[in-house]
């Protein structure tokens, strides 16, 4: 089985990092990386912006040879004292897992009153969703989430992996990163379409917190339509059901919903929760077939490659991704314009309001210019 899998050359998301983000979604206060000091540094740093502390046992050569049981248990005691956490996560790394470190023993040694989620993970899994799964399983065991939620998440993870294999970054051996199409050209095209009286759909299909920025693009399209007197030529779909997913994910949906409402933007169709981006495709297809098949263009943001092409037949497709390696697959699927919001993710951490996107800002400016003329 394993041998038949496509061997992918470009670096891919890490399961260790996926575990860290999942711990954050579970609202742990401190995550401990049991491994080398530099492991997952960049993401550990980013997560601090999101209000969780990430620390490391900083295993060195000695740690690799003699193990780090003592280091981990004393670090557990130390963070408990320093940060008074209510929930702690301990995450394995390649180094500690290869030498056969146990996470449970040091947790027992430390004997804290605080629950500790143990995630025995390393970065060697071909699908980084494994890191999420291992974390959720541990959370279920500890009673932090219930079995029903675990099963729901399992389905989503499986689908997410399939989406990446079909048309995502795991779809071929090597994918050249790309900055996509020039934003102001595409912005001009969008304004033009609206000016010509064409009807468009915005589909925000965002992965969790990235929605804070992708929602800005939906907002910008609506603002421009309003300025052109074409407000009802645009319908909006978004995966912002705030009754689904882990608490933190629901909170994002609530915040984004409130912001859009405040800006006077109607979301006509809620297509799922913010963790349901891999499975919204079917709902979107059904909706388009029933109500919007005569629409002329679609602006899809977030995880555009999860929306099946059949549903979009005959439409001009503009998609916005935050993955530079996603450009090529999207073009191959038949999307006409593909835009990359570079470095989107860091800007959506630690916020609870919509943040300005580059494409949104460009669209607003281009529209101003074109209307002024």
């Amino acid at each position, binding site marked *: 089985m394993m041998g038949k899998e496509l061997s992918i050359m470009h670096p891919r998301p890490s399961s260790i990092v996926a575990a860290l983000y999942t711990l954050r979604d579970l609202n742990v206060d401190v995550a401990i990386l049991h491994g080398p000091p530099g492991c997952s540094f960049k993401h550990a740093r980013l997560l601090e912006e999101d209000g969780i502390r990430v620390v490391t046992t900083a295993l060195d*050569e000695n740690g690799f*040879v*003699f*193990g780090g049981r003592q280091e981990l248990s004393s670090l557990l005691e130390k963070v408990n004292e320093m940060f008074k956490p209510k929930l702690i996560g301990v995450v394995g790394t390649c180094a500690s897992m*290869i*030498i056969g470190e146990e996470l449970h023993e040091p947790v027992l040694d430390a004997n804290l009153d605080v629950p500790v989620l143990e995630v025995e993970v390393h970065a060697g899994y071909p699908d980084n969703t494994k890191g999420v799964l291992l974390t959720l399983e541990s959370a279920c065991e500890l009673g932090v989430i219930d079995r029903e939620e675990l099963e729901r998440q399992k389905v989503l993870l499986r689908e997410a992996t399939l989406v990446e294999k079909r048309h995502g970054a795991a779809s071929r051996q090597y994918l050249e990163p790309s900055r996509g199409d020039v934003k102001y050209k595409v912005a001009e095209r969008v304004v033009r379409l609206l000016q010509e009286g064409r009807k468009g759909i915005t589909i925000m299909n965002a992965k969790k917190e990235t929605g804070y920025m992708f929602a800005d693009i939906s907002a910008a399209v609506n603002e421009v339509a309003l300025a052109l007197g074409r407000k009802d030529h645009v319908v909006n779909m978004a995966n912002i059901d705030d009754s689904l997913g882990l608490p933190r994910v629901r909170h994002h949906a609530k915040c984004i919903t409130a912001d859009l409402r405040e800006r006077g933007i109607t979301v006509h169709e809620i297509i799922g929760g913010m963790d349901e981006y891999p499975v919204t495709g079917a709902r979107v297809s059904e909706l388009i077939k029933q109500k919007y098949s005569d629409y002329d263009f679609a602006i899809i943001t977030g995880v555009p490659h999860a929306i099946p092409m059949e549903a979009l037949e005959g439409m001009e497709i503009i998609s916005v991704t935050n993955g530079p390696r996603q450009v090529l697959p999207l073009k191959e699927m038949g999307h006409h314009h593909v835009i990359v919001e570079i470095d989107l993710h860091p800007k959506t951490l630690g916020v609870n309001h919509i943040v300005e996107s580059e494409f949104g800002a460009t669209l607003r400016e281009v529209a101003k210019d074109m209307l002024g003329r």
Partner: protein
Amino acid sequence: MKDQKRIAIYGKGGIGKSSTASNVAAACADEGYKVMIIGCDPKSDSSITLLGGRRIPTILDLLKQHLDVNEKDIVFEGYGGVKCVEVGGPEPGIGCAGRGIIVAIQKLQKVCPSMKDMDLIIYDVPGDIVCGGFVAPIRKGLVTEAYILTSGEYMPLYAANNICKGLAKIDTPLSGIICNSRSVTREEEIVRRFSEEIGSRLIAFIPKEQIVQDCERDGFSVLEKAPRSDIAQVYRKLAKAIMFNDQSVLPGSLEDERLRELTK
């Protein structure tokens, strides 16, 4: 650099690698050679019989304490001036002994300039090559000649055969087979046939003698405690054979069926 022999003795665990290595080291020292023995087994039992039964601090012991390690902290002179080093390692079942060997050997090379002056360096490696660390001395180009120690029994020969496969895979030539007897019938003949069939040769036959174990129990090599014994003479001969050996081949290996036939 002068002409230096750097050898490793491989073979099934318990077959007699450490005791052969220390007796050979002692015999070479008696001949006036400068000898170093580097114990790479976490058990740290390679040099005890050269040090009158004393255990020395291991490289990893010291590294673990974050001490600044110098040659004098890890290299100890034993019988006949043989320089003794023990790599050490984690407790059984914890951490990574293989990584330990790699780290310790790198450290040793760095802090031990006198390695260069040696005529013979013996790496005494653990029996089972369970991971990359255990072949680090070879992989890192430290060992130039490999020997295999075996008896005429099926299991030790099976291990020897596997080691041959391993050596061939990492392009390391074999310089000879040493038979350490377990008093099996036709033993010398069996091991000689084996040696020839894999393309190598038998360079010594060491009989099984109680005196080896008696000396070991008291903390000595045979060369030191019973220099006049017959077996001391055998070790001297082996030492000479090793020092003058200039033949080595990339070994072949046998099918298991042939191996069984050979030991019938």
